[in-house]
């Protein structure tokens, strides 16, 4: 955006060309080119990464087959540790999906225009992580072959939190899909009606994507009415998805708290889960945004400012989470009831002190510092913080799930009772460091390779699915970028667009503004096609005009929309007039 608008301001030639095309939206070709870059021909590195991730995922499936054969015991479970890694995974993976959806929804509802280049990645992250999280139900279940019973109404037990969990998550999945789908409708139309988009796609893939786009955007022709409906629908979904996500994580926590166990029977648990989900969700959005920004060279649209703003959101959530943790442990530890106090003691100073303090440092203190210190308040700093958070919060989920599940409810002096309350690791069921499965023991839980492999596989599946998804759909929302650009452009000025989309006074826009030669050189290539997609070069320069004309009938609506938007103001006339 930066470049495009500055292109407009700086290089009159380009601008003139574009405006002559009769399109009211200046930056179109540039944005489209960048957003569709991911759809282009896959490079070697893409294949290498996808293959590696694919192998990891397959390894996870193999691990699950082993578990299927040997039973859940092979995953380190036993009667004194009936919930552990898979339950933490369920919480963690469904949790991260929260971020994408809610970040996008909140930014939409608050009309934060800087969201424009981020929404697609955020929504895609939600769309991809949620099914992966849901899939953890399968290794979690002892008898996955009977999973159909969950959708068989005569068997439903409506007082069960797990059933409501299932309902809530399924509904949420539907909402996430809709939330991804809706903004896509105008987008694919823009993409398809453009200059032979998707670029650098040939043969079967080209036809497939074209067909898909045509199907998705079937009845979209961008009239004012349609736009209004779409905006309304998006607003509605954005409003709905927030309570929906809150309910999902609350109900998830009820599954734990419908118990008499210290650490599960906690009033704070639903809030805790919701905040943790948001926290990790923003972190994964940052990681995804940074990764795709880098991979598809979107630095011009997604600037340091965007990442840092997300970082601020993350910091706020991290601080709340830290506060909740503090509250919970303080009050439980103070309570004096042996169960709760012993449980807190186990976590803070007992058997689980390493994972707990690891969380405290890696997802509590360090991210806050990285955001607080100006020197590290940059893309790299935020990325490091996010990765740390994602891992440490997974560990924290284990700290939530495992100690409470392994807490003995019937104390017996000889086997474990006294030992637990005095903070010494009990020797029950043989918990020396190397346990049943030869794994590392966490109290009565013993890590084995199977849940680790499955967890790693699920983690690998996130980038894998995202990469595949962005092979099919544009990595940024073209229409949203344009709309914001247009809106801001009409309301403010060209510099306003720069400010809004690239984020205030980052160093680059200034450079753009002053040195008009530089932007021309920089923005020229992608526009005129020497940048990527060799086969497009020829097409692009002449199609630069073509798309506008070919879109002309379809875009009529948009044209008329832009004028009312402009309120027949100066901006509208300027651009439109220029176009004429």
């Amino acid at each position, binding site marked *: 955006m930066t470049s495009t608008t500055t292109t407009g301001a700086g290089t009159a030639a380009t601008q003139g060309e574009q405006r002559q095309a009769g399109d009211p939206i200046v930056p179109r070709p540039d944005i489209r080119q960048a957003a569709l870059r991911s759809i282009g021909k896959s490079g070697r590195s893409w294949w290498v990464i996808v293959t590696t991730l694919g192998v990891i995922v397959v390894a996870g499936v193999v691990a699950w087959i082993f578990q299927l054969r*040997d*039973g*859940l*015991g*092979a995953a380190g*479970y*036993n*009667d004194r540790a*009936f*919930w552990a890694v898979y339950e933490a995974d369920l919480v963690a993976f469904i949790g991260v999906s929260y971020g994408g959806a809610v970040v996008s929804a909140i930014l939409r509802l608050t009309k934060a225009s800087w969201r424009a280049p981020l929404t697609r990645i955020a929504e895609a992250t939600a769309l991809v992580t949620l099914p992966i999280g849901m899939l953890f139900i399968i290794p*979690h*279940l*002892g*008898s*996955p072959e*009977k*999973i159909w*019973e*969950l959708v*068989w*109404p*005569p*068997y*439903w*037990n*409506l*007082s*069960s*939190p*797990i*059933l*409501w969990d*299932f*309902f809530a998550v399924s509904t949420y999945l539907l909402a996430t899909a809709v939330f991804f789908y809706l903004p896509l409708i105008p987008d694919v139309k823009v993409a398809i009606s453009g200059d032979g988009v998707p670029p650098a796609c040939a043969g079967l893939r080209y036809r497939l994507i074209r067909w898909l786009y045509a199907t998705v955007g079937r009845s979209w022709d961008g009239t004012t009415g349609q736009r209004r409906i779409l905006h309304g629908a998006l607003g509605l979904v954005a409003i709905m998805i927030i309570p929906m996500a809150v309910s999902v994580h609350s109900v998830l926590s009820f*599954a*734990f708290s*419908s*118990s*008499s*166990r210290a650490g*599960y029977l906690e009033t704070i648990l639903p809030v805790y889960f919701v905040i943790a989900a948001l926290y990790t969700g923003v972190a994964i959005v940052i990681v995804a945004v940074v990764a795709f920004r880098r991979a598809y060279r979107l630095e011009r649209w997604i600037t340091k400012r965007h990442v840092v703003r997300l970082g601020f959101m993350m910091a706020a959530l991290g601080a709340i989470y830290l506060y909740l943790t503090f509250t919970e442990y303080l009050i439980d530890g103070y309570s004096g*009831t*042996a*169960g709760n106090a*012993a449980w807190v003691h186990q976590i803070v100073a007992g058997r689980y002190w390493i994972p707990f303090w690891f969380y405290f440092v890696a997802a509590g203190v360090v991210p806050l510092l990285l955001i607080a210190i100006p020197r590290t308040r940059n893309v790299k700093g935020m990325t490091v913080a996010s990765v740390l958070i994602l891992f440490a919060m997974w560990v924290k989920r284990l700290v939530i799930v495992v100690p409470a*599940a392994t807490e*003995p*409810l*019937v*104390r*017996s*002096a*000889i*086997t474990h*009772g*006294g030992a637990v*309350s005095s903070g010494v690791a009990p020797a029950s*069921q043989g918990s020396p460091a190397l346990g049943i499965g030869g794994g590392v023991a966490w109290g009565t839980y013993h890590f084995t390779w199977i849940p680790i492999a499955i967890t790693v596989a699920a983690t690998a599946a996130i980038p894998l699915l995202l990469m595949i998804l962005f092979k099919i759909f544009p990595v940024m929302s073209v229409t949203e970028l344009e709309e914001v650009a247009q809106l801001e452009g009409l309301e403010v000025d060209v510099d306003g667009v720069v400010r809004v989309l690239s984020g205030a006074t980052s160093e680059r826009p200034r450079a753009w503004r002053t040195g008009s030669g530089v932007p021309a050189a920089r923005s020229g290539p992608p526009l005129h096609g020497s940048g990527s997609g060799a086969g497009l070069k020829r097409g692009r320069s002449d199609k630069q005009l073509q798309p506008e004309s070919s879109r002309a009938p379809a875009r009529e609506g948009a044209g008329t929309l832009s004028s009312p938007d402009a309120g027949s103001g100066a901006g509208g006339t300027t651009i439109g007039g220029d176009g004429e």
Partner: protein
Amino acid sequence: MEPTAPEYRSGTSTHSSLSPGAANPSRHPGAPRPHDNGLSRRRFLKRVGAGAAGVSILAAGGADLLPSSASAAPGAGAGSPAKPKASHQWCMVIDLRYCDGCKQCTAACQKAHYLHEDQTWIRVFTMEGESGNTYHMPRPCMMCEDPPCVPVCPVSANFRTDEGLTLVNQQRCIGTRICMNACPYQARYFNWTSPAPAPRQPFAQTPEWPVPQVKGTVGKCVFCAAMLPAGKIPECVAGCPMGVLYLGDLESDVAVNGFGNVIKLSQFLADNDAVKFKEDYGTHPRVWYILGHGQDLGSDSEAS
């Protein structure tokens, strides 16, 4: 003290008439009194569930609102006024005065049900008394009148019979283990691996006779439900060489141990100041303990 039979089925009256834990506070200083303020944890959940179901279209399609308790044991839940009369209400009395911790009850149970060694459906815990002494405490399933394990199952695999037994339908159990989370007595055991091999049984695997166990499902003490109608006492009761365990029937107010000693249940419980385990959880267990070694069962899980 002459409690009439129907009284036993109501959690409230059972407590007030029979549980000396309530009648004799000096025994458990500081222990919360069993209270029944009309809305127990489980009933609260059930109502919330039913309410949610009422407003939910999901309740359509003939789905039983509360299959967990309503259909399996109509009215058997505590406090329900109109209940069909079952001819038995099973319970257990465990006389800790004579338990020497030999664990033969566990062995007998495991042998009969073909369980793995760590599947201790009746487990003998070694507890520490208040004076630092140790004593032994067998713990079967408490057959709670208000069982927390039942309402949490998503597929209604847990149910309560009208004879007061909480059972697991292992053919249906999908293995979420949320009931293991819910049970305050740690009485549920999962089949983490393939169950121990069992010879062919004369009849099919049922909740009443869960042999062989099913891999990936939850199993627990069933009071040997299949043997009771035949007039046989559970394996653990029969296997106890000290006559500690009694199988009781609240309906006919008698109990019998492995020696064949028949006692008048209400009289025995009252005379010996019987208590229940973790009574304050509102589960209304149907297992009574007779203390005798200065034991303290603890009003809460940690008090021992």
